[in-house]
């Protein structure tokens, strides 16, 4: 039997091209397996071959989603693969979005079985889990072996048109699909069993998890912005030069609160970024490129805003757990309210 032909998608980092300084590279294609593709190919034990690897920089993809998608699709199409695999992207946000976007496109536009893998908190997972199979992985590349062990069997089933089991059986992220099946016990009995377990404080599994709609309604608009006190917040990791609070370059465990009283402009001498998830060169030259203090000072002088709040809050947004950033913002929002802040401009890289 001929080997299964796979095209694999990875980013510049996993291709060994470079880190953030190379994140703007355009899509390119290489024959054969590259980087994690070796492990995936090995996982198929000789049944499959990665005929080509498409590589694209994460920033290029994130900044040009539509164009990048088309370019990558054309490259994939050129190899007429039997199967398409993207990633796994673990907890890398832009990479996850790229993997999800391209997996969905290959599946729906080229009709080729496709799957990807990522950590459950990757924004790409939320965006694409309903459209495609996203295998749940650990949050870092240390989980590669585990990811491959889940992706390969699922890929084979997809390829052969076999029935796909439940998310917990197959290791993919829930897609919100309900499936009818026959069961020994009727509903009333199962419900009572579940209730008894709950009363005893034992673990039980719901048969119908409620969707997690955590949305917050927009607050009313600012009536008169020329009177408003505006605060700056960023996930771009802007800190005073030297990073006095030692905010981590990724997976931040804290945020900083920094005084900009009298500061009219952020410069290479005064501020920098602690963020490890983008090329810091431009930001370190001029942090206003991430946190627009200079412009807000001008607007303040011209009376276009009431005032710029004396403190800004900053953390690094890459790989930082949703739970942590939620906690940070809960804390500093209380301070913002106590300080009479009317509105916030939050910038992200």
């Amino acid at each position, binding site marked *: 039997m001929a080997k299964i032909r796979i095209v694999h998608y990875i980013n510049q980092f996993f291709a060994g091209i470079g880190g953030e300084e190379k994140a703007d590279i355009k899509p390119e294609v290489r024959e054969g397996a590259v980087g994690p593709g070796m492990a995936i190919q090995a996982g198929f034990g000789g049944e499959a071959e990665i005929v080509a690897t498409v590589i694209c920089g994460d920033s290029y993809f994130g900044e040009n989603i539509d164009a990048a998608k088309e370019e990558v699709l054309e490259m994939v199409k050129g190899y007429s693969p039997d199967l398409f695999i993207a990633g796994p992207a673990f907890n890398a946000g832009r990479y996850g979005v790229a993997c999800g976007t391209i997996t969905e496109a290959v599946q729906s536009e080229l009709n080729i079985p496709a799957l990807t893998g990522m950590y459950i908190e990757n924004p790409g997972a939320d965006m694409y889990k309903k459209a495609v199979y996203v295998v749940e992985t650990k949050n870092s590349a240390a989980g590669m072996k585990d990811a491959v062990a889940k992706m390969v069997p699922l890929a084979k089933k997809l390829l052969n048109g076999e029935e796909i089991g439940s998310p917990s059986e197959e290791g993919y992220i829930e897609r919100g699909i309900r499936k009818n099946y026959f069961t020994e016990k009727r509903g009333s009995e199962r419900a009572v069993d579940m209730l008894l377990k709950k009363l005893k404080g034992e673990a039980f599994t719901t048969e119908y998890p409620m969707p997690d709609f955590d949305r917050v309604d927009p607050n009313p608009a600012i009536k008169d912005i020329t009177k408003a006190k505006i605060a700056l917040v960023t996930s771009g990791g802007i800190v005073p030069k030297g990073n006095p609070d030692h905010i981590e370059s990724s997976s931040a465990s804290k945020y900083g609160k920094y005084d900009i009283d009298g500061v009219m402009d952020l410069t290479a001498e005064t501020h920098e970024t602690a963020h490890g998830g983008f090329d810091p060169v431009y*930001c370190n030259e001029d942090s206003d490129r991430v946190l627009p203090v200079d412009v807000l000072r001008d607007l303040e002088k011209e009376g276009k805003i009431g005032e710029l709040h004396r403190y800004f809050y900053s953390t690094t947004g890459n790989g930082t757990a949703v739970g942590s950033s939620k906690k940070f913002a809960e804390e500093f929002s209380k301070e913002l*309210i106590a300080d009479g802040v009317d509105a916030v*401009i939050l910038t992200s890289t």
Partner: protein
Amino acid sequence: MVKEIERAGIPVVHICTVVPISLTVGANRIVPAIAIPHPLGNPSLDKEEEKALRRKIVEKSLVALETEVTEQTVFDK
């Protein structure tokens, strides 16, 4: 963070490059930015032009804060 600030009752505008991520995260007022390593700048412009570009984005975010919205809105005009 954007959602928690909103939940606390403060109107917030999110300036970001990858708008789909902002939509997924749940920001209500979104202003698209220039590029991931320099959302509010462009190093290929000269200083004056770059600041003018930054000012345009900030002004757009002020308009967003002054605009009543009932659902997630991207201010891209």
